[in-house]
């Protein structure tokens, strides 16, 4: 019972296969990896099924697939413009992966891949590294003008540039921590309120009556968490677009 109530236990990784090692690092197939795989499988199966018939008048599943596709497509189009076409598959992959990882985490006993900071931070670092690579590939060293805004008095220019650099470097941190924090905190709070219900419920009649409030809270939080799960995937994807926009079009 104690484990059922420990709000941290749900984030525990278990080895499902292994242990395997590569260069001294453990890479066992864990429940986290399993749910990454499930997310990848679900996304692929749903999209392929949606596109399979290719009907002129879409059915339900096809409508969902098309909405999903066009949602991300419009996002990329609006933020990145025509040049963003090349990045559409990447943004789509990021959005879908994060969305499905978040949503799968909403099922009881399922593992939330994005509740681990190393996953979200890896994605965030990848995105920002990609921004740097694309920016330099496209604009050469001139891309670093991004950190030197024009029209700023020379006296405070070093200071401004320092702030720009810091703000750029804080992007992966904020990007990764936002998703991680949202998923982690949401699941802990859900578990805590659900734990109250179980604890109070085991205390007899008074406890059962008293557990109504946390039960309602848990239900409301579940709804909120579904919203957050979608919203964080959207935020991650659109920030990816916004950062990539810096690489494609240097405004400063």
């Amino acid at each position, binding site marked *: 019972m104690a484990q059922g109530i420990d709000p941290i236990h749900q984030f525990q990784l278990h080895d499902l296969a292994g242990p395997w090692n590569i260069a001294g690092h453990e890479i066992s197939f864990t429940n986290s990896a399993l749910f*990454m795989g499930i997310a990848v499988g679900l996304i692929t199966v749903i999209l392929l099924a949606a596109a399979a018939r290719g009907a002129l008048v879409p059915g339900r599943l096809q409508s969902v697939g098309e909405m999903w596709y066009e949602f991300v497509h419009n996002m990329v189009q609006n933020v990145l413009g025509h040049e963003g076409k090349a990045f559409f598959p990447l943004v789509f992959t990021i959005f879908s992966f994060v969305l499905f990882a978040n949503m799968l985490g909403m099922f009881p006993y399922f593992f939330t891949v994005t509740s681990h900071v190393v996953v979200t931070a890896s994605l965030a670092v990848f995105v920002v590294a990609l921004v740097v690579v694309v920016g330099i590939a496209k604009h050469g060293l001139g891309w670093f003008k991004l950190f030197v805004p024009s029209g700023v008095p020379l006296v405070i220019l070093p200071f401004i540039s320092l702030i720009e650099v810091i703000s750029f470097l804080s992007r992966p941190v904020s990007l990764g921590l936002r998703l991680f924090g949202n998923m982690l905190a949401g699941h802990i709070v859900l578990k805590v309120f659900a734990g109250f219900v179980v604890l109070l419920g085991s205390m007899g009649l008074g406890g059962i009556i008293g557990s109504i409030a946390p039960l309602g809270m848990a239900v409301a939080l579940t709804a909120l968490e579904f919203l957050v799960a979608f919203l964080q995937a959207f935020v991650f994807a659109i920030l990816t677009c916004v950062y990539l926009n810096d690489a494609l079009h240097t405004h400063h």
Partner: protein
Amino acid sequence: MSQSTIVVAEATTEAPAEGEAPASGEAGHTTEGTAAEGGHGGFPPMDAHTFPSQIFWLVIFFGLLYLLMSKVALPKMAAVLDKRHKAIEGDLAKASALKHETEAAIQHYEKSLADARANAQGIATETRSKIADEIEAERSALEKTLSSKLAEADSRISATKAKAMQDVHEVAAETAAEIVSELTGHKVSKEHAAKAIAGLKG
């Protein structure tokens, strides 16, 4: 029940402090709560021991998903949407072509209608003038016959009149000769009488 939770929680918080002792390189555990493990910190998301595995599988699955999306799923989806887009565009083009055709047909119809109307007007005018000509010709022909008949009648009247006058003279000469013979007993020839009358008439 709640007591056991607290125990677990306490164990969890203590874990990092006491937990350096057990072998930290050990792999494949974590089935029982954090308290039992200790060695890698109490809070799973901060457990650096699991990082390589997560990053490894993230790279694999994210890369796999990217490949599946960019090479298979998204092109298929794009093809479906493109097909619909093209179908709609084609239908619209066809509709506008048909509309143009309709407009052309209407124009053609209106033109032929106007032509027909003009034609009819021309025919009407022509017919009217033809009829007027015919009427005119008939009238003039009739007038001609009438006037010729009139002239004939006139000449006949004057002939009749002249003959009548002639007859009157003869009658007058005869009568005069009769009267003279009655009165005088002399036989007067008709020629004399006629001469005398002609002399009177002078």
